[in-house]
């Protein structure tokens, strides 16, 4: 056990987002301009969903829901917040490695942060249930 990183110690960024996560929740309104996507599995410890309202190819509003450790919650919150204003299809964004760096997450959390990345990409790829669009 000696020398192991302490599992319940988090960076200030994670602490803040865990305590009161910005962009937590869901969007209301017409489903036409809304993208949604999710990834993960609660049995494996992480499941994340994103919703975004998009106008002119840019994210206007983004919300997340997350089942997972504090890093997952904080990462989903960070992604939802920083998605706003971005082009929907921005390549290489978000990036789990970049999230890990920003949140000072230990290496073994990368798998969970990939769930956050995957969920956002699933949202971007969302056809809104309207095949062919």
């Amino acid at each position, binding site marked *: 056990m000696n020398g192991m990183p302490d599992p319940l110690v988090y960076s200030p960024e994670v602490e803040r987002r*865990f305590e009161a996560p910005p962009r937590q929740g869901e969007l209301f309104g017409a489903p036409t301009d809304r993208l949604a996507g999710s990834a993960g599995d609660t049995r494996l410890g992480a499941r994340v969903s994103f919703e975004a309202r998009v106008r002119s190819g840019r994210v206007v509003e983004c919300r997340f829901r997350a089942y997972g450790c504090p890093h997952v919650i904080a990462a989903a919150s960070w992604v939802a917040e920083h998605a706003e204003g971005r082009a929907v299809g921005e390549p290489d964004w978000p990036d789990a490695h970049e999230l890990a760096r920003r949140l000072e997450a230990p290496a073994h959390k990368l798998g969970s942060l990939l769930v956050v990345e995957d969920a956002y990409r699933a949202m971007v790829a969302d056809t809104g249930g309207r095949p062919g669009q």
Partner: protein
Amino acid sequence: MQYMNNPATPVYLDYAATTPVDERVAERMAECLCRAGCYANPASSSHEPGRRARGLVEAARQDVAALIGAGPTEIVWTSGATESDNLALKGAARFHADRGRHIVTSRTEHKAVLDTCRQLEREGFRVTYVLPGSGGVVGAEQIEPALTDDTVLVSVMHVNNETGVANDVEAIGQLCRDRALLFHVDAAQGAGKLPVSVDAFGADLVSLSGHKVYGPKGIGALYVRGSPRTRVEPLIHGGGHEWGMRSGTLATHQIVGMGEAFRLAGAHLAEEQARLRRLRERLWSGISGLGGVHLNGCPVRRAPGILNVSFEGVEGESLLYALRDLAVSSGSACTSASREASYVLRALGRDDQLAQSSIRFSLGRYTTEADVDFCIRTVREQVDRLRAIASSGTGAGSREAM
């Protein structure tokens, strides 16, 4: 997380991991440390200070023996229940290796037993790890089918450290006596909390620990039946202390502390048992009101102070962090350095999500009603909050459908 009239945080609800030393115990310990006290080596029979220290050691031996219905010459001092478990299992298995090489134990034992069994497997012993019965209780029905002609030793814990479930050691003891098998009981969590009687248990070897009963850490004992004398090969050689079963300078202050702690536990056992049971029931009814919570382990056969609960819809690490105003643990303290789902709860049939989101609340001598009420408020608030982050609203996924 701010309430009026809250207790000082974090509120300690991890008495199964360890207990604070009782002030009366600490006082006795302090008398054996410094120049003015009884600091001599209890092995120094050549002078009066040494003989006085030895007298204190022997008086403490009586106190520990008395709590479990044993004789003082049946108590061997060790450095804790981990060592006691190792001495019992390795000691008995190695000593009797020519009689048989099969051991039966359960999947819900403490790591001190399981890791020791793994080591014995590497030495050529065969070990059967039985699943517990319903409610996580291990009884004779689980053990009997596993016995073979080659079985020499059965090891089943009294009270499980994660769930608080009390196994049916009396029935297993009877079974072992009928079959002339050695029976070891890890009573680290049971002694001082529930009545323990080596004869009622039919036990030949019983592991005890000081620090689970308001005594010091780093001291324990192994009960070794005197008649018929149970034989164990020592783990630690050198000087032949403790009838040759455990060498090393006897730590007077530690031993005196464990003796006093066991004496106090015995004196207040019944009333404390009732008090803790009431507090635990209050806690459970407060928490279970949340919905989507599951009690782990049999609701009836259990130690009074331990409540292990799984929460639907919340992830374990986040839950533990959200509850940081409570000093609680997920899974066994001894293994909580790694955050894998508890092997004990999996053996009880819990799925991965529920095993991973379990919290052990363990109450003790200094737990008050105010502590319990604070705990209930904190748990309700935080579980609600995390469930809201995981799904929309408070009902899991209810808004989705709107």
